[in-house]
């Protein structure tokens, strides 16, 4: 028996001609731009979370009241605690332990401070006051001779702001994902329109919906994954630059040069997921779009 001829059939595995119908330029470029935005939103959410965690420590005691060192005797401390807890704005009042006080002052006064330390009462507020100054006056009136520090109220407000930023960043991420899905759906619909006759032919030959949708989904997943990878690679230096700008807010020193950028601050783990999630989004969107269209065929 004669040996069958060897022929060029490089496109045999692409009977729908999707390499042309789903262009490898426009869709990846659009997705790359969206991946860049997603990376920025992701990093924004992570940065806001870091700021929140850092500031929350400072806001834990939103208001403190200092009493002179001798206030422990004569029941003055107990009266002050009782008066503070009686205020409706105060959820709790407790004396800061000597050990914690020493730990806080250690960087300035060393292991065994020679000076007498004041008594510090930490107040946990029921809710953030509209006017910290008015509250400070109210507390000062309740504890005569006490020194009120209410800077923590402002820190707590910053925490609330950072949390809002985090929520906005996550919402932006969801929005970008939604727009990316819409862009993929439009591209796939254009591909279907361009290959309508070929799809009908394959359908007539016994191709299943899964087979036809799988061809579109494989191509869309590849293009979207590639675009997301490009966008992510572009985002990495931008994020390192932002991290450098934000360094003072996190108690770090800015590098000021490309070589010294804080690359370790870039959320590499989350960024590595973006191309994979992008590919999955493209695959799923194409599957849903094509299967929905195929339902109109008998």
């Amino acid at each position, binding site marked *: 028996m004669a040996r069958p001829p060897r*022929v060029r059939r490089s*496109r*045999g595995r692409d*009977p729908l001609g999707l390499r042309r119908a789903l262009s490898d330029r426009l869709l990846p470029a659009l997705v790359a731009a969206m991946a860049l935005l997603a990376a920025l939103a992701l990093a924004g959410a992570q940065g806001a979370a870091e700021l929140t965690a850092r500031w929350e420590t400072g806001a834990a005691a939103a208001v403190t009241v200092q009493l002179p060192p001798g206030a422990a005797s004569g029941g003055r401390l107990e009266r002050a605690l009782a008066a503070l807890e009686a205020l409706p704005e105060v959820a709790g009042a407790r004396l800061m332990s000597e050990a914690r006080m020493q730990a806080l002052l250690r960087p300035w006064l060393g292991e065994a401070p020679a000076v007498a330390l004041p008594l510090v009462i930490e107040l946990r507020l029921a809710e953030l006051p509209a006017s910290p100054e008015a509250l400070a006056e109210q507390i000062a009136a309740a504890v005569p001779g006490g020194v009120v520090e209410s800077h923590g109220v402002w820190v707590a407000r910053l925490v609330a702001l950072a949390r809002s930023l985090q929520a906005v960043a996550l919402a932006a991420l969801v929005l970008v994902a939604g727009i990316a899905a819409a862009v993929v759906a439009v591209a796939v619909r254009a591909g279907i329109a361009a290959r309508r006759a070929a799809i009908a032919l394959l359908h007539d030959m016994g191709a299943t919906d899964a087979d036809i949708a799988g061809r579109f989904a494989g191509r869309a997943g590849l293009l979207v994954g590639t675009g997301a990878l490009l966008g992510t690679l572009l985002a990495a230096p931008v994020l390192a630059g932002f991290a450098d700008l934000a360094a003072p807010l996190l108690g770090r020193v800015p590098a000021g040069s490309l070589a010294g950028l804080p690359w370790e601050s870039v959320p590499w783990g989350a960024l590595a997921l973006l191309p994979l999630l992008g590919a999955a989004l493209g695959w799923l969107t194409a599957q849903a779009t094509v299967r929905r269209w195929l339902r109109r065929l*008998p």
Partner: protein
Amino acid sequence: MVRFDDVGLRYGSGPAPEVLRDVSFALPQGSFHWLLGPSGAGKSSILGLMHLALRPSRGEVEVLGQPLTRLRRGALPGLRRRIGVVYQDFRLLPHLTVFDNVALPMRIAGRAEAQLRADVAEMLRWTGLDGKAGALPATLSGGEQQRVALARAVVTRPALLVADEPTGNLDGAQARRVLALLREMHRLGTTVVVATHAEGLVAEHPAPALRMSEGRLVAHG
């Protein structure tokens, strides 16, 4: 093998008139039938129902022993793979070579590449296209393109072969060559239904005929 029982067909879901009305016939396994009638008589609709591109609006169509009204949509692809179709306009995929066009039904059926090469090569020899395996359809004559379409329709050895005006775009010699191949498939045991306008060709190859007029079957035999 193929049975139509009081079949009606209308396109769309509105109050459009039926393009097929009260059509009933049965084609035994291994038969050869002409499907005759003027344009608009309903020949393509009959063929569309036979190769499962359409579903009847009423009545029952049974293809290869399977009643369509009771068949799940998911079961149709398997049945379609047992039916070969030759279109008047060939419907070759322009970006695929002759080889890949012919191999397409086998790839859809999941045949391994190593296995399908020999079958496709044999089909190309059978249709006189063995030197054209690497050519693109646009470089072929009309007769060659129709033979590629025929090779693609029969490469999976279908139980039923339907051809819609397969000689409509061909000159006399090419038409006779395509018809000879269809007769050869019938000789090998395939049930063949050929829709045509070409009464001369029918006269040259006498066989039972279904004659359609205005959506109705007016003669069978």
